[in-house]
């Protein structure tokens, strides 16, 4: 190599940061496996049980039971729709309060965010169990659980979008003598509406999957059917529920993500 060129070359940056990050990630994965008692031997030893189970589920599934799956599955989807959309409606005002470029009161932003984080921490299944004990067995408890779950998810993503808007448009509305509601209507809503709708659809996709297990704690939908046949060890029926649910989720995801692509 040309020594003159090498002499003018800036010092090669050390990649300490990269290697230390890599070491840290490896350490985290290994320690997580150790702490959780993960063992490849266990997997190998139990493989034959797994194959037996799979065989009883899918070879063949209980095709004749398929008709009975549709109704609880539709109920699950209805729960997911209701939960995501009610959650989305509640999420927007919360997102506005959390966004530090709309409400410039720091303690209020922080309090609202804390509150939103709190809801996001509780798993949907736990929420469902809690609401079953409040409202009794049935899909209403499931809808409330999914509402709160969607609320936490959508409000967080929406307030982050609000904080990322072009603030110039807000300045323009202020300069026109606009108040907070005008700012919301003319500067914020047009900028975040597509993202907000996209988050709502995304929450719906997540909810369809979450709703499927909620029945396990008595919160309605296809989960309740799962529970019955798992308890009775009718794995062929469990198999057909999984197949039909999988197809339904696939179709919903396809449609929903196609719409989301067009939105943003």
């Amino acid at each position: 190599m040309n020594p003159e060129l090498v002499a003018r070359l800036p010092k090669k940056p050390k990649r300490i940061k990269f290697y230390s990050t890599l070491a840290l990630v490896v350490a985290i994965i290994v320690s997580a496996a150790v702490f959780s008692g993960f063992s490849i031997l266990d997997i190998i030893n139990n493989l034959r049980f797994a194959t037996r189970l799979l065989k009883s589920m899918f070879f063949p599934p209980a095709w004749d039971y398929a008709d009975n799956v549709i109704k609880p599955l539709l109920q699950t989807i209805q729960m997911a729709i209701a939960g995501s959309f009610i959650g989305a409606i509640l999420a927007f005002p919360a997102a506005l309060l959390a966004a530090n470029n709309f409400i410039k009161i720091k303690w209020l932003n922080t309090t609202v965010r804390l509150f939103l984080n709190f809801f996001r921490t509780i798993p949907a299944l736990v929420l469902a169990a809690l609401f079953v004990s409040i409202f009794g067995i049935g899909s209403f408890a499931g809808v409330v659980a999914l509402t709160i779950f969607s609320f936490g998810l959508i409000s967080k993503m929406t307030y982050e979008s609000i904080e990322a808007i072009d603030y110039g448009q807000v300045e323009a509305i202020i300069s026109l003598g606009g108040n907070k509601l005008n700012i919301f209507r003319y500067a914020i809503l047009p900028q975040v509406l597509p993202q907000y709708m996209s988050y709502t659809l995304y929450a719906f996709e997540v909810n369809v999957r979450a709703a499927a297990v909620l029945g396990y704690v008595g919160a309605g939908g296809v989960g309740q059917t799962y529970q019955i046949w798992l308890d009775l060890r009718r794995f062929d029926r469990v198999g057909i529920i999984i197949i039909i649910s999988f197809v339904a989720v696939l179709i919903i995801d396809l449609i929903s993500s196609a719409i989301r692509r067009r939105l943003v």
Partner: protein
Amino acid sequence: MVAIILKEHTMIKFVNVNKTYPNGTVALTDVNLEIKEGEFVAILGLSGAGKSTMLRTLNQIIDVTSGNIYFNNVDINTYEIYGDNIEKEIEKQKKKNPEFDESKLNLQEIDITQIKGKKLRKMRSNIGMIFQNFNIIKRMSVIQNVLSGRISYNPIWRTIIGLFPKKDKEIALEALDRVDILEKTYHRASDLSGGQMQRVAIARSLAQNAKILLADEPVASLDPITTFEVMKFLKKICDEDGITMIANLHHVDLALEYATRIVGVREGRIVYDIQVKDKKDQDIINDLETVYGRPLSQKDFVGEE
């Protein structure tokens, strides 16, 4: 007759204005400036000199750390700015509203740094603003954008559902016609070119019925040809409507051609102030080297039209 007429003929008056941002940046130091109605003031200075801050303190998008900014002859019932030429403004009001009762006028000097809430918003509705990045609402149509200039004249429910009265639509269409962009009325704003977007922004200020127009680098994102086009529209509406214009510019030749007065800002202080007609262009250009702290070069000029 009018209740109080202040003796001095000054529309806007900065008195010892200082601005220090929370992060410690000193943007304005001891700014004292008087602006008369109908002036076209170009503010020149390097970027970071405090020009944008100065403009934004005028409509209180940015508050001041200390000092006062007075607006002369403001009716304290409506917070409309009557400015220096009260008789003309009263005539204009009478033309708009035959029942206009001038005996109810209560004109006073208002310090915009001391008012808040609804009063401040009413004051702002007199003061238009044009931005470097246009700041029109890109996901709305051109007509909706211009109608947004009418938000302070309408009840909140109308502005929220976007249902403006017929007379406001007329005002908006006339404004679009005046900046020669009527044919784009129903287009989505994001489909327009930069020059067209800026004309929509000007139309919005016209619809707002601004008495004062603040322009923050109005042509900095535009190519030379569009630059002159937009400057001509700005000059035209100011002349026709008697709008007082304060514009941050970074092209010296634009200031010389369109402004009546040049104010130089350096490190947050006003260091230069001259009526353009009082001095030869070349002398002003020479003076500006002290404002900029460096010799002027090609990039400080747009060049030939």
